[in-house]
């Protein structure tokens, strides 16, 4: 079933939130990971609240707000958020307080804001939204779980569903992940640097001329490159799409992990099929596929020009079908087909 995308908004390392400047100029990252380029939050969030919110909450509230405003939706009929690590900043802060204070008297603020569903909960609170409210935290399929649930909710007749992906990084989390060997060299700009950000969408059943839609999504775990090929073929066949119909491949390629999966997928398409490695923009993180869906939607909707030298796919025009392929550490594989 089609999930029509009324609107989308994202914050990532590059400028995507201010749509008048959408990916216009390359922002060279500072520091060791791809830190999000955050907008000024005043004017979007009540200044009294801004101070108390962690960055993942601010990024999520701002992008949710923009998506809802563009869709002209006041109160969504469901809020579903995917986040792999959740509110890691407040988690680390509270843990530090416990350890340094040797379990002494603690302020509960960081604990209160540390749970994964703080994001969806805060959005509901700000919107006074009493409806269905879910949070998925499933590694490289956190956003996928959310989208699959959103499709069920749409099929049950709910409309205007707010779906989002959110992740935040900070120095301490980065250092741990660096020591775990989870990140490549950000200077290489090969998609292996860790990133962060938020991407939100308003999904609807309502078809409209020129409105992009998620045609289908397919997920699998722990498969071989051969099984992946089969899985792609059946995914395309199920959707009556030929490889040559795909105008753009949005790939989660990450040079840090040479694993043959992305090469396999690329080999199944004609050489002149444009390919864009979206992690060069948003970095590697559990919910990077959420950003891919955002970028794909923007390309379909506005036929966004991607003239930047660091992106540079030669796009056939108009772009009508985009295939997203991503995998997280060869465990969680995802296909999403976006169409207009």
């Amino acid at each position, binding site marked *: 079933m089609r999930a029509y995308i009324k609107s989308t908004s994202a914050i990532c390392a590059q400028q995507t939130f201010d749509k008048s400047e959408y990916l216009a100029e390359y922002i060279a990252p500072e520091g060791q990971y791809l830190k999000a380029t955050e907008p000024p939050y005043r004017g979007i969030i009540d200044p009294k609240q801004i101070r108390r919110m962690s960055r993942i909450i601010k990024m999520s509230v701002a992008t949710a707000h923009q998506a809802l405003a563009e869709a002209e939706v006041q109160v969504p009929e469901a809020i579903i958020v995917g986040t*792999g690590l959740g509110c890691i900043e407040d988690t680390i802060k509270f843990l530090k307080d*416990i350890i340094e204070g040797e379990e002494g008297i*603690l302020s509960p603020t960081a604990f209160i804001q540390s749970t994964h569903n703080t994001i969806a909960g805060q959005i509901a609170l700000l919107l006074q939204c*009493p409806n269905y409210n879910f949070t998925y935290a499933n590694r490289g399929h956190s956003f996928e779980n959310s989208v699959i649930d959103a499709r069920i909710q749409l099929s049950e007749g709910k409309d205007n569903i707010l779906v989002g992906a959110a992740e935040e990084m900070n120095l301490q989390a980065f250092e741990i*992940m660096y020591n775990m060997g989870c990140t490549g060299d950000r200077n290489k700009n090969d998609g292996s640097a860790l990133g962060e950000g938020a991407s939100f969408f308003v999904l609807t059943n309502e078809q409209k001329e020129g409105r992009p839609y998620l045609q289908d999504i397919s997920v699998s*775990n722990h498969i071989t490159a051969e099984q992946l090929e089969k899985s792609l073929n059946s995914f395309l066949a199920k959707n009556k799409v030929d490889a040559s119909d795909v105008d753009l491949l949005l790939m989660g390629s990450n040079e840090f992990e040479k694993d043959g999966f992305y090469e396999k997928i690329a080999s199944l398409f004609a050489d002149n099929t444009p390919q864009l490695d979206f992690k060069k923009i948003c970095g590697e993180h559990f919910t990077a596929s959420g950003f891919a869906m955002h970028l794909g939607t923007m390309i379909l909707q506005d036929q966004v020009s991607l003239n930047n030298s660091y992106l540079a796919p030669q796009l056939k025009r108009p772009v009508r079908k985009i295939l997203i392929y991503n995998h997280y550490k060869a465990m969680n594989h995802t296909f999403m087909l976006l169409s207009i």
Partner: protein
Amino acid sequence: MSKRVFISGYGIISALGFDAGQNRNALKNLKPGIGKPNFLKTRQEVVVGEVDASNEQLTDMAALNGASNISRTALLGLIATKEAIQMAGLNKDTLIGTGLLNGTSVGGMDISERAFGKVLNGQSVDYKASFAGHDCGHSTQFIVENLGVKGYNGTISTACSSSANTLMHGANLIKSSQLDCVIAGGTDALSMFTLNGFNSLKILDSEWCRPFDQNRMGLNLGEGAAFLVLESEEHLKARNGKALAELIGYGNANDAYHQTASSPDGKGAFNAIKTAMEVAAVKPEQISYINAHGTGTANNDQSESLALQTIFGKNMPPYSSTKAFTGHTLGAAGGIEAVFSVMAIEQQVLLPSLNVKQPMDIIAAPNKEYKSAKVETVLSNSFGFGGNCSSLIFAQV
């Protein structure tokens, strides 16, 4: 969306015991599992519902030879899912197409919090072994890999309603024909992080908790895991499985009142229960027993009582909170109480509340005995931080 969703097996591990039989006996004998922690290292003077086994013993129980540094969350989850599969009689081939949904609030925090202390103190740490299991999705992946479950999997983290939500989502996946069989539930281990978190909120009772008592002082934390096998009618018939109960209704709503506290009038709870009853197409007088969220905090029990009063009025069915037995097991609570709800149907009994000396003045006293009754339909509530309110309704088949 008229497909029926049956429960064909369950597994449970909690402070009451390592399997379903031990848990049932503890309920029957009014024997709570709350006491001083033996395995959780903390300076806090508390009583908790701890699973009575070390990590090494749990590793053996899960038949993982010599594995180390695995979070209790993952271990408890694996033990409970194995029992559920065995009870349902799912074979290896069936597991390939089976899905798994896991609800957890802090995932592998019990391991990573210790390692993080070492990082802060400049001690050497094996980063991969210490932190690779931190995220919530790790326990899910660990469980599916060890079970050979190859179907769709998901992890829900909505604080204390996490595993109630996995059951709701599991039912949705079956009703929308995306899965025929799904193991759904949740797991959470005690951790220094959550213990100090609830302590900082000043909602821990240092003695045994007293849900629905006028003078209740707060909750006791617990740990555990429980998973239920959900199946479509066709799938169950095709493999000659036996239905133990049916999941007939579910509702999720957001209280949209406060990040941690429940609204005084229980608006979110009311909406969740109301939706669940609409989905189940049952009237208030058809509910035989309520397994309440009943944490024992002033705020929750007040809010939940008012929601129940609004729904049921004078026809208030017998209700109780089993948290005085198990402690509040957070992400696992919805699964554990779903298992208790199914047990109440199987055994045709009402489950007891404990430690109630003076009932609240706004609601009739909870049921305090393990006693026989006609139990056709059970409502189970789970409410959490972030305003998350979930209700499930189980029925006799």
